[in-house]
């Protein structure tokens, strides 16, 4: 007998299977058990716990002191400049980086989706993908080398005779931007590409037929039809770029401290 045949004919297995599959309802809940547990325990649990702690007056719990419910932490957060400035700076940075990423990647995605033949599209896309497999730290380091005082950019500018002394790119909002965009561009590129790729060529041809100029065609057809791709790309890039920690530490300077660094700093002291 083969393995599966033996299993199905096995009395003990049949007994177990009979109880498991007794009704559609039971089968559904057995199938649902692990996913629901995982989603509520592992996905939702940490987030809920974190919010909950935000309302406690002391954390980690001290001996002999029951944590009290309080809004003080949230009040402190919105009053303390140490928190609030990096917080809004992070939002502003992420917003700007997202906008720049969109401007840079839109033509790239458009070129890929519309001007590269089907056969080559995968190859060209692969070319874009490869650098994104490399981790955050390694890529951040690569940017450090690029922008350093003796880095490739300064070297190139110097040898072209444009500058005498190296420009201090590093540890500024600029270097941080170059790094973050380097890390997140893919999350913009892929949604844009898949939105533009679905856009049928004959829409544009029809519009051109009706006498629409290049700019009109772009504004009235391409842009609205790729709106979904733009929206999901921007959301992803925005969210992800607020979450980097190592990159701001390594590339940013004192005047570009982001929220991640602040909370990480506080976390190591207390843990709020």
């Amino acid at each position, binding site marked *: *007998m083969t393995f*599966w*045949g033996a299993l199905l004919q096995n009395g003990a297995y049949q007994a177990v299977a009979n109880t498991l599959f007794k009704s559609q309802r039971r089968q559904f809940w057995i199938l649902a058990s692990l996913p629901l547990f995982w989603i509520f325990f592992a996905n939702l649990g940490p987030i809920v716990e974190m919010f909950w702690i935000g309302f406690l007056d002391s954390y980690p719990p001290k001996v002999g002191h029951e944590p009290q419910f309080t809004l003080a932490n949230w009040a402190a957060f919105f009053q303390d400049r140490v928190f609030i400035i990096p917080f809004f700076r992070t939002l502003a940075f992420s917003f700007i980086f997202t906008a720049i990423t969109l401007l840079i990647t839109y033509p790239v995605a458009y070129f890929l989706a519309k001007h590269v033949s089907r056969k080559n599209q995968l190859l060209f896309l692969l070319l874009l993908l490869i650098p994104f497999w490399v981790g955050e730290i390694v890529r951040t380091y690569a940017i450090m080398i690029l922008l350093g005082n003796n880095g490739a950019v300064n070297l190139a500018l110097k040898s072209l005779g444009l500058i005498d002394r190296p420009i201090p790119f590093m540890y500024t909002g600029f270097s941080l931007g170059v790094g973050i965009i380097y890390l997140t561009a893919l999350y913009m590129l892929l949604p844009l590409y898949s939105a533009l790729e679905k856009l049928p060529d004959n829409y544009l041809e029809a519009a051109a037929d009706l006498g629409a100029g290049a700019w009109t065609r772009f504004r009235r057809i391409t842009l609205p039809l790729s709106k979904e791709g733009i929206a999901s790309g921007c959301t992803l890039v925005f969210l992800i770029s607020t979450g980097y920690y190592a990159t701001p530490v390594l590339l940013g300077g004192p005047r570009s401290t982001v929220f991640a660094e602040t909370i990480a700093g506080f976390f190591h002291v207390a843990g709020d």
Partner: protein
Amino acid sequence: MTGEKDTIVHIDNVTKRFGNVVAVDQLDMKIMAGEFVTFLGPSGCGKSTTLRMLGGFENPSEGRIVLDGVDVTSQPPNRRDVNMVFQDYALFPHMTVGQNVSFGLELKGKSRPEIERRMAELLDFLQLSGFRDRTPDQLSGGQRQRVALARALAPDPKLLLLDEPLGALDAKLRGQVQIELKDIQKRTGKTFFFVTHDQEEALTMSDRIVVMNAGRVEQSGTPEDLYFRPESRFVAEFIGETNLINGTVRGVEENAVVLDWNGLSVRGSGHGHRPAAGDNVTASLRLENVTCHNKKPANQNAVEGKVISKLFKGSRTSLDIRVGEREDSIIRAIWTLAMLPKLPMISSGLAGSRNV
């Protein structure tokens, strides 16, 4: 073993609803062992739903399904001695032909040598021996169809379900496979439950045809019954091409009903129906039963007519003939060499009739 005329399946007053849609409406029928039964009907009439209830893929909303004397209504598919040939064949793409055919045997707990023997036997029977180690994507449509058949036959089911299994084949191959399939059914002696919406296919293969319409059985009988003695307008129209004649009964004779059709007198067989004089009835006049002559023959059913159009359809040509005075008294006939295309023409025929 069950005898030749034993009931193998009893569909006992089964109704199936999907929300508000009644897909199958109080279906009650029996299938005999060794029969080739075909469910025929237009799209959406509930054929597949009936078949899927037999296979165990849908649960009836009401009624029972009895298989060989056992109520299997609430049994899952894996507990039923019923196998299915799917419309898309549903061959497992990651298994070879041999593995596909062995699959059901394996799960039944058969020993290796037994599986091997039965698989080889079936592959041989269906002329697939050379393809044993190929995967389904290396086969042609007809070969895949045969593998699906072999796989379904392997566990030796009491009933074989086939849901439009020839739909994916091209017209030429389909005709050939129809004959093969009927032959396989005869040689294995298995009960086949076949679903199609192609009336020609049904007529070619079946021992019995069940015509369905909107979840109900319209008529059930041999192909000849349905073709020559349709019991409703729906069946007459659905099977073959026909002329429907709406008339009033003038009188009933011993083997014939005489109709008044737009002032013309038409005689036809009542097939057991004896409508009263004055009733409005519809009669069906098959195209091939209309013969045309140059001179009006001394026949009671002969009427004069005029050819108004000719349609060439390859193997045959059909003629539209206006008979009598009225614009809408048109009869379609098949053109044969015996007929002369000269005008005016006289047509005659024998009509099957039925109350409407």
